[in-house]
């Protein structure tokens, strides 16, 4: 097995990791918003569900492109790894696709339907909103080794083992709570800008409950990782200072929710600060995880070198990444200004 990792391969895995990170954050907000709009749907007097929908409507499409970007980056940059992952992930991958299709479809339909159907449809997107991330995240522990077997050059996944692993379940729990946590935080920030007191309080409270729960799940992950994928645990622990900074950021976010609000005296908390702190926290934690995972894409068979694409193709792709970024950046900025910043949109009555 080739073990010397080239710079090209490192850049490639960083790009892939970048997409995964962005998708993880955006999708958590997206799935969580769907979940909250389901929970608060029946409370006519609060604006909480409205706020969630307002965030959800324009963003899901852009968020969805990131899934495609991940799949494409995976097979363009690491075709060898795709061969194995594509083979073993047929079942879980298909389940995710089926749920995504139902969710996206009905999410869009719900805006055009009468009230009585809208409820059923909101349930579909709300419930799938926390099942999808819990299945998606299973891909991580699957790559830690012990679940993929090879016989006569045919790879297969032992689903029985996957569903009896404590580590897998801690990842699932983490996915659910951090989805709810991230989205509560973001929606709290959104309601703060929209000047909706009641929705703000609801989402702030949501964040205060789900935050500690997701932290607890993160500890469970480490605990079970130690016994189930010790190689990864040991390597993560080599970066303990960064993990501690990450924990500090989490505490800072918690603190931010209790600081006095800068603009409105009667409101407690600075949600924008909390969102930023948590994003940094996730960034640091996933950096440590990703760094420790290298050079393996799927332990122990596939490294970033064994799955890497042809160097010529990589260079051509890399150029398109740069050009694409330059072209798209103004578009993203415009989008953000129109939907995340423009108070006319956020405060609009519907």
């Amino acid at each position, binding site marked *: 097995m080739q073990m010397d990792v080239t710079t090209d391969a490192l850049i490639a895995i960083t790009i892939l990791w970048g997409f995964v990170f962005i998708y993880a954050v955006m999708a958590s907000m997206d799935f969580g918003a769907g979940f909250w709009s389901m929970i608060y749907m029946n409370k006519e007097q609060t604006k909480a569900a409205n706020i969630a929908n307002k965030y959800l*409507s*324009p963003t899901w*499409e*852009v968020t*969805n*492109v990131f*899934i*495609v*970007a991940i*799949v*494409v*980056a*995976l*097979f*363009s*940059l690491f*075709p*060898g790894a*795709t*061969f*194995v*992952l*594509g*083979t*073993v992930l*047929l079942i879980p*991958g*298909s389940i995710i*696709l*089926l749920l*995504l*299709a*139902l969710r*996206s*479809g*009905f999410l869009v*339909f719900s805006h*055009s*339907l*009468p009230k009585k159907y809208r409820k059923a449809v909101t349930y579909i997107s709300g419930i799938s909103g926390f099942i999808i991330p819990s299945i998606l995240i299973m891909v991580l522990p699957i790559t830690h080794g012990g679940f993929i077997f090879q016989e006569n050059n*045919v790879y*297969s996944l032992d689903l029985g083992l996957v569903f009896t692993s404590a580590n897998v379940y801690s990842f699932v729990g983490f996915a659910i709570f951090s989805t709810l946590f991230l989205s509560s935080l973001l929606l709290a920030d959104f309601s703060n800008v929209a000047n909706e007191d009641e929705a703000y309080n609801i989402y702030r409270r949501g964040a205060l409950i789900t935050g500690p729960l997701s932290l607890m799940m993160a500890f469970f992950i480490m605990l079970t990782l130690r016994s189930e994928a010790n190689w990864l645990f040991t390597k993560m622990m080599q970066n303990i200072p960064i993990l501690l900074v990450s924990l500090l950021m989490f505490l800072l976010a918690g603190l931010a929710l209790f600081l006095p609000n800068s603009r409105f005296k009667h409101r407690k908390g600075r949600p924008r600060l909390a969102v930023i702190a948590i994003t940094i926290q996730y960034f640091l934690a996933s950096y440590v995880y990703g760094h420790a995972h290298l050079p393996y894409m799927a332990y122990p068979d596939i490294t970033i070198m064994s799955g890497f*694409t*042809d160097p*010529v*193709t990589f260079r*051509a*792709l890399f150029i398109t*990444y740069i050009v*694409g970024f330059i*072209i*798209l950046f103004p*578009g*993203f900025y*415009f*989008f953000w200004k*129109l*939907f995340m910043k*423009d108070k006319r*949109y956020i405060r609009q009555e519907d």
Partner: protein
Amino acid sequence: MTDLVLARSLFGTTMGFHIIYASLGVGIPLMILLAELIFQKTKDPHYAIMAKRWTKAQAVLLGVAIPTGTIAGTQLALLWPGFMEVIGKVMSLPFQIEIYAFFIEALFMSIYVYAADRLSPAMRIITVIFVVIGAAASAILITNVHAFEGTPAGFQMVNGEITNIEPWKAFFNPSFVVTATHVVLSAFTTGAFVIASVAAFKMLKTRKNEKLYTFHRKALFLGLIVGGLFSFLTALNGHESAQLLYEYQPEKLAGAEGLFETQSHAPLAIGGFTDANTQEIKGAIEIPWALSFLAGNSFDTVVKGLNDFPRDEWPPLFIHTLFNGMVIIGSLLIFFAMLALFYRKILKRDHYPKWLLVLYLFGGPLSLLAIEFGWIFACTGRQPWVIYRMLKTSEVVTSSGSIGTLFILFAIVYLILGIATVIVLTYYFRKHSIEEDLRLTES
């Protein structure tokens, strides 16, 4: 059934479903753009209402186009891992660039749908232009991968190893331009004829209400003119596609025409069924010499017959019917548009006869059918190859099993989404009637 057959059926079903929404996703934004432009020029509020209503419909269609596209993209890797390993190494550029096209589409479509009221007219038009560009570029780029499968370039296979990779040479493979053009033109055709079909349907129902009838007549005429123009261009370009087959995939052309013996002055067979045992087409109308002329612009052109190829590399023979279906529909569509021109510009009629409207009712469904025929012809006609004369489909299929169950599950989900689209669209447009829109613009 073997896993190979099941995987093909599953992937073919996914694509067959996606392409309905995808083609409309390319065609309808063009119609929205045209309506916006006509509105800015004439200030006729009818066109503003059209743009608004088509946008609403397009937003609903996107709700299925995007997830099914996501399924298509992921299924390529899940069902054909061996294929994607090669594509990843050689032909990943179009996929990568397509992501940017998707972003452009997604960003500007969301802006157009959710922020149109906050944009100036000029910004609105620029936004729709970006939507059209994004959608058309998605279609062009994904079609490029399909073109590459038929006319691979930019790499060599030496003892099963891929070497000498030149990604841009693969990108500009011989059939890229012609094939991608064909797909975009046919999508524009389809979007326009679907709009015309809906308008014709409404005209049949509003014959008594002059105001509504006029509204729909404008939509019908716009649809037919645009559709007519693009179906004409589609046919011209389709002729080029056929010439490319003659050059690069002769057994596919032979299959499409049911030609067994290599010959000059080859006849063109329309209709009928190819019989492999007797080596002839049953029940076809033959136009002498025409195939030779079509293939190479001269009657002396020698067209290769199926017997020149090993039997196990023959494409399935029913592609003859698919090809015929596409070409016949293409010709019909051109005829439909000319008929409308005749009525409106030569006879100067404001009302169309009922039979004509009934005819137009079929334009949209027929063009969608032509797209399905064309694709199944193109993909199935490539069999047994997934990359022509390089890689066989049977070598790249997944080894995971349980595809049958997945096939059923996906089929059910497509069925649900398909039915839901129809229900949602009918419900929405019934509730938000044109009268209401007209009243809103008048006040």
